[in-house]
Structures are given as C-alpha cells and as structure tokens.
C-alpha cells in the first residue's frame, strides 16, 4: 500500500483547518430522477480524496458539478472565499483529467499540453518552458511532436495529466482516469499518480468504482451510494470502522451478523458477549481476518465459535474459508494459505472487532 498512516492522519487533521473546496448540501436531479441528495463534504489542501461508488451512485455527476459541466439543482460550492458554482467551467481554477482523456486529436502532444496556457494568452516562451517541464514530469518529452492517435492509452493518460497540471490548478479532478488501462499498467499508474500528487502538492479529487484503487491511493474516501454520502473517512477508518453495512461490504469482505443487546449482553445466535451498547437490535460487521483459528493465542474475552468447513478459496497469501456453524450461521474466515484445513474447526474473535453498522443485512 502506498498510503502511509502518517499522511492519512496529517490530512484528516488538516480538514478542519485548511479546507480548499467546500461542498455544501449539493443535490442534483434530472427531471424526476434524483442523482445526488444533500452532499456536504470538504476537500483539504494537498489532500487525495477519492469519491468511490458503483455505477449510478452519482460520483461522476458530483465531479462534473465541481468542474462546472453540470449545475447542481441546489446547494453551493465554495473555494476559499470564492463561490464556485456560479462560475462557468472556464473561470474555475479547477482542472479535469477525463475518463477517455479527451485529447484534442488535431493538435500534437505538445500543443495539447500548451492549450490551456495559450488560451490564457501566456507568452510563447512561457508556454514552451512550462510545457517542456510538464512533459518531463510525466516522462513524455520524447513524444512531444506526436499526434494523440499515434501514442498508447497509457501515454495518452500521461498527456492528459500533464495538460491539466501545467495549469497549476489548486484542485485536480480525475474521472476514472485508470479504468481504460489494463491491470498491470493500472497498478503502476496508481503508484505514479500518488507520488506525483505528493510531489506537486495539489488536492486531487479522484473518482473510481474500484475499492482497491481507492484504498491504495487515497488520504480519505467518500463512499457514495444511490446519490447519498454513505461515509467519508480515511481508508483505515472506513475499513475498520465502517458506518454502514453497505460500506462494510463494499470496501473489503465482511461477515454481517444480526444480534441483540439486552442488559449489557450481546446475543448473536448461540454466541454472546459483554458489551456497553444500549439495548436493541444490532447489525455487526466482522472482517474475515479478525476471526482466528483457536489455539494460536487465546485472548481474554475472546468469543469462540465452532463450525464445519464448507468451501475454501485460494487467494495467494491467504485463503478464504466458508464455515458453517451449528446454529445455521455461516461465516467467512481468512486464514494463512498452505494449511491443511479439514472438518470441524474452532475459531475465536475479539468482540471489539464486531463493529455495529447501520443498514440492512442484505448482500450487495
């Protein structure tokens, strides 16, 4: 993983002090079709914020509202003391890297990168030197004179990035920029993009449907679902403390357990443990890797469970086991690979790892 805990902490602390972009109660509908409902969030200076969601979650619409290609039905955008949403796209100090790059086919790589400076009426020498610098930054100097149709998808991606960065925006918007690349190149670009972002120090708002990509690259993730903001937090936080059943399932694997608290005791099928939660029904998210094989090191207060191995899926470093417990409960357990698993098994987990979440237990 590229994200270090330090940057994550630094930026989540920085949100309150130096917010660059503020989205206030933004909603959008196309006719009767509600695409975004009451989205409020802030992007900190130098932050890498990912807007994560399935197709139809409204993530691209939100990005297009920030860029100015769509108008919000209600709500406001603020950038410092400037109200952004009343400005046309060409007056916003925001630049976009488009999903399909949108390079001008009639211009060379060099002219594409210089376009945004030329329309600003910068001097020729200024344009030339900044273009050269931007192309060097994305390692595309060798292709400066080529037309976009003559370079590969990954190279077009770099040009699109240089074209946006050369404008020195305060905020860069990226609309699924890696989705058209094949898996290997994609991973390589994730790393490159992240280190480039650190290097230039500007805020990135990155849209993706790929939760792994979001985890690897982001300082914070804003998870959208059906036009609503499900949760916004650092990757670690959202993974270990998902707010909703949807968040828990969308970001990584999880077991959703239905339980009930009465008098300080959580009951979940045949399992039970002490808790400080008030009385009531609960939905709990328990990550497969937080369920351990019994015996390795019995922890104080750990909850035990027994079950029969039903299925195993090999994932390289780990295996995912499907275990059927006596009372009809089925859980997934992540265990080290190359172990001989068979028949009846005993497991334990720390009740603190069973995180109460909002929402229903239906599988997504």
């Amino acid at each position, binding site marked *: 993983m590229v994200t270090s805990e330090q940057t994550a902490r630094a930026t989540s602390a920085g949100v309150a002090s130096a917010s660059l972009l503020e989205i206030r109660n933004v909603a959008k509908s196309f006719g009767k079709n509600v695409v975004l409902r009451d989205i409020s969030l802030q992007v900190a200076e130098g932050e890498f914020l990912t807007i994560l969601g399935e197709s139809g979650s409204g993530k691209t619409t939100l990005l297009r509202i920030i860029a*100015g290609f769509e108008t919000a039905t209600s709500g406001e955008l603020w950038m410092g003391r400037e109200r952004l949403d009343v400005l046309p796209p060409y007056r916003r100090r925001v630049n976009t890297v488009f999903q*399909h790059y949108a390079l001008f*086919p009639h211009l060379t790589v060099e002219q594409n990168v210089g376009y945004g400076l030329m*329309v*600003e009426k910068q001097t020729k020498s200024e344009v030339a030197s900044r273009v050269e610098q931007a192309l060097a930054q994305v390692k595309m100097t060798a292709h400066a004179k080529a037309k976009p149709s003559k370079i590969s998808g990954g190279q077009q991606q770099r040009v699109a990035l240089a074209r946006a960065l050369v*404008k020195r925006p305060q905020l860069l918007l990226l609309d699924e920029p890696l989705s058209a690349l094949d898996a290997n190149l994609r991973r390589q670009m994730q790393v490159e993009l992240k280190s480039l972002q650190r290097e230039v120090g500007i805020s990135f708002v990155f849209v993706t449907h790929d939760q792994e990509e979001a985890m690897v690259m982001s300082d914070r993730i804003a998870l959208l679902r059906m036009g609503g903001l499900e949760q916004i937090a650092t990757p670690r936080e959202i993974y270990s403390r998902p707010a909703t059943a949807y968040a828990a399932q969308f970001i990584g694997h999880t077991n959703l357990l239905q339980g009930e608290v009465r008098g300080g005791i959580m009951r979940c099928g045949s399992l039970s443990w002490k808790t400080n939660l008030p009385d009531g029904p609960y939905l709990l998210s328990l990550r497969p890797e937080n369920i351990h094989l019994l015996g390795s090191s019995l922890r104080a207060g750990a909850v035990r469970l027994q079950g029969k191995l039903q299925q195993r899926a090999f994932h390289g470093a780990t295996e995912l086991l499907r275990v059927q417990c006596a009372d009809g409960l089925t859980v997934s357990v992540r265990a080290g690979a190359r172990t001989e698993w068979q028949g009846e098994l005993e497991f334990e987990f720390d009740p603190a790892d069973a995180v109460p979440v909002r929402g229903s237990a239906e599988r997504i």
Partner: protein
Amino acid sequence: MFSRAYRTAITLPPLLWVTVFLLVPYLLMFCYSFWSVSPSQAILHTWTLDNYQQLRHVDVYWQTLLRSMWIAARVTVFSLLLGYPLAYFLSFYAGKRKDLFYQLVIIPLWVSYLVRAYAWKTILGSDGVLNTLLQYVHLTRHPLEFLLYSPFAVVLTLTHIYTPFTFLPVYASLEHIPRNLVEASHDLGASPAQTFWRVVFPLSIPGVLAGATFAFVLSLGDFLAPLLLGGPSGIMISNIVVSLFGAAYNWPLGAAISFCMLVLVVSLLFVSERLEKKWSFA
C-alpha cells in the same frame, strides 16, 4: 474466400453500368471535342484542336465560364454562411428538438428543384411578391428590375437550393466531435469563442470542405436557375453547352466545353478529397 464465379457475378453489373453509362459517353464526348461541323451541318470526323482554340479566343465562352465560377463561388460562401451556423445550432444547442429541425431542413429537398426555382421567379418578378410589398410600404415607387433576370437572382436561388447540401456534411462532421473535447477546452480555461475557433471549427473542416465542394460543383454546372431567373446577364456555362447541343448544333464545341468543365470538376474533387483527408482525425 468467395468463389471466382461469385466474385465475377457481383462485380460485373456495376462494372457494366459504369462502362455503358459513364466511360463510353465520356469517351464519345472526348472524341467529339476534337471533331468539327461542316457548313452543311455534318459532323466531320477529322481530328482538330479548333474547338479548344475557340474556347480561348472567343470572349463569350471564357467570360461565361469565369462568371459561372464567380456565381458558384458566391453560392458556396453564402450557403456555408447559412448552413454552418444552422448546423452548429442544431448539433450543439437544439437539444430535444434536434430531429424536428433536421427534418425541417431536409423537407425542401423533397420538393422539385423546378418548383423552387419558379417560386423565386414569382417572388422576385416585377409584379412579384417582393416588389408589390416594397411598393405597398412605399420603399420604392417602381418595381426593382434588378431583382429578377440578374446574377443576383441566380445566386439567391442557388443558395437557397444548395444550402441543405452544405448543411448536411457540416452537421455530420459536427455530430462526430466528441463533446468531452468541448468540455476539456472549457476546463482548460478557453471561452466559448476560443473553444469554437480552436477546437470545434478545425474539427469540422472536413464537413466544410465537403459542403463547399457540393455547393460549388453543383452550382457551377447549373442550368435551370440561370435559364429561368438569370436573364442575359446571368447566363452560365451550362446554358451555352445546352444551346450548342441544341439550336446552334455544334456538338464538337459543346463537347469541348463540357470536357473542360469535367476536368475542372474532377480536379476540384481530387483536391477537396486530399484536403479532407488531411483534416480528418478519426
């Protein structure tokens, strides 16, 4: 992949068609252009360059050819000036009414050319709609004579008739421009005007060239509009060809003029195609 017999069977009919209706007539025309007519009005099949010499030395021929080109050039410019904004509006701003507007542009094409030319005659004539109106509102006392039977009338009519022909290719090329290029241009700080001149227009040049070629070539060879509305000052080269093949009975000279026109048009098409290729970025 396919059998020889099958390939022959499907290529033969078009080949025959082209040979019988295109190559042979053109070849005949080419031959005729080097023959001559005897005083007794018989075609003499002896080779001579006389017809081409006449084209160079008799003023009326090359002057009419030049006038035809000048009329065609004006028609081209005016129909682009009308057709381009129309296509641009339809493609970028018409929204849901796009199809309706498109049909409205196309519908006149279903009406006979002859009818439309006659319509202009009724509008522009000395007792026509326009002159009656101008007199009625006292803008003029006598009917304006230059309206009809003038190059003006020809240019006006041809512009009206060929604007859809420039509109269509321009519209097609505008429709092919990915809209995210326009967004990218705005995103990079270009105003709508800058975006139009630096992105939209350059990418529509193939359509402009195709439309201009249509308008120019079609109006260069037009003979009905000048016949009906041109008067003596609005005569075009096709009218001369028609009379040479008809009343004047000088097929060889008519063939020579036609052949020159053919060379002119084919070279125009060639140049325009090369330019279109140069400006298209698939």
